[in-house]
């Protein structure tokens, strides 16, 4: 019973904070404000994007034309979250500094991991 209450209680607060970061990220993509969007990427994701593109994150991210639709659902389990919009699935991880994007522009691949434009498996 304690496990049920812990899961339910922690879930609602974590969903709000994960969604808030996802909202900020999607808003920055739509604005467009690449610097703000890049600041919300996990460090590893940002550096992988820079090394794969040979450009700064601020230059590489807008070129991917990631969709910036409003959030329709949020699912949080432990330190991981999945946020869906009408056109996209975004993954987040909770670091000591807060929630950061670990995958964006992710497409469903059945039982296999999502295929993401930024970050991902």
């Amino acid at each position, binding site marked *: 019973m304690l496990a049920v209450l812990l899961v339910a209680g922690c879930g609602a607060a974590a969903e709000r904070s994960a969604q808030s970061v996802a909202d900020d990220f999607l808003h920055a993509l739509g604005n467009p404000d690449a610097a703000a969007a890049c600041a919300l990427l996990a460090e590893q994701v940002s550096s992988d994007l820079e090394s794969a593109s040979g450009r700064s994150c601020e230059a590489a991210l807008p070129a991917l034309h990631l969709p910036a639709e409003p959030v329709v659902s949020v*699912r949080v389990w432990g330190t991981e979250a999945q946020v869906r919009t009408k056109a996209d699935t975004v993954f987040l991880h909770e670091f000591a500094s807060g929630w950061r994007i670990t995958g964006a522009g992710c497409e469903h691949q059945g039982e296999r*991991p999502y295929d993401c434009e930024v970050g*991902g*498996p």
Partner: protein
Amino acid sequence: MRRFLRDNGLSVVFGLLFLGSLVGQTFAGHADYVNRQLARGGDPVSFWAYVTSSDFAVDVAENWQSEYLQFFLYVMATVWLVQRGSPESKQLGRIGRESDEDQLVGRHVTESSPRWARTGGWRTVLFARSLGLVMGVLFLSSWLAQSVAGMSAFNAEQLADFTDPLTWPQYVTSADFWSRTLQNWQSEFLAIGSMAILSVYLRERGSPESKPVGASHTVTDESG
């Protein structure tokens, strides 16, 4: 105090062993959890965050449910099943719920019988099933806790691997849930079966779990 400890040695010692092992599990589990988080590029998690996490809860609950299942089944199965020569079994001719005379109920209660055994009616019926009922409830509660905590831990892994999380009905029919469940059940059933049959032929002098050293292999329901 010394007398209390002597009279309650089994429960005190096993209570302390349980607490010591649980504390040990929290430290070892935390170190392992931190290693896994770091390997995934995450940050270290605090000790408190770990002991309130679903990872810790599922590891505890999956062992608790199987232990309570073991004792629930042992309590219930030994009503109807016997093992010739085993001190864990009752005598071969006493299969079933036994007579009121054997069980000291109805007209056969004694002055020292527990109050609910003497009262009669639903209280005595409930009291006569109380050990199995409590073990059964503890088993089902622990198993439910395992399923909830297990789903949470499993879904966190799923999201970290960029795959979709499962709902509770999906999780309780998943390979992860049944793998965790059955790996515990098989070891409990092995232990019960081994104890029932080994105690026919082997002895431990002074233990009530064993027959007296000189007792015949064919003697059932006797402890020494």
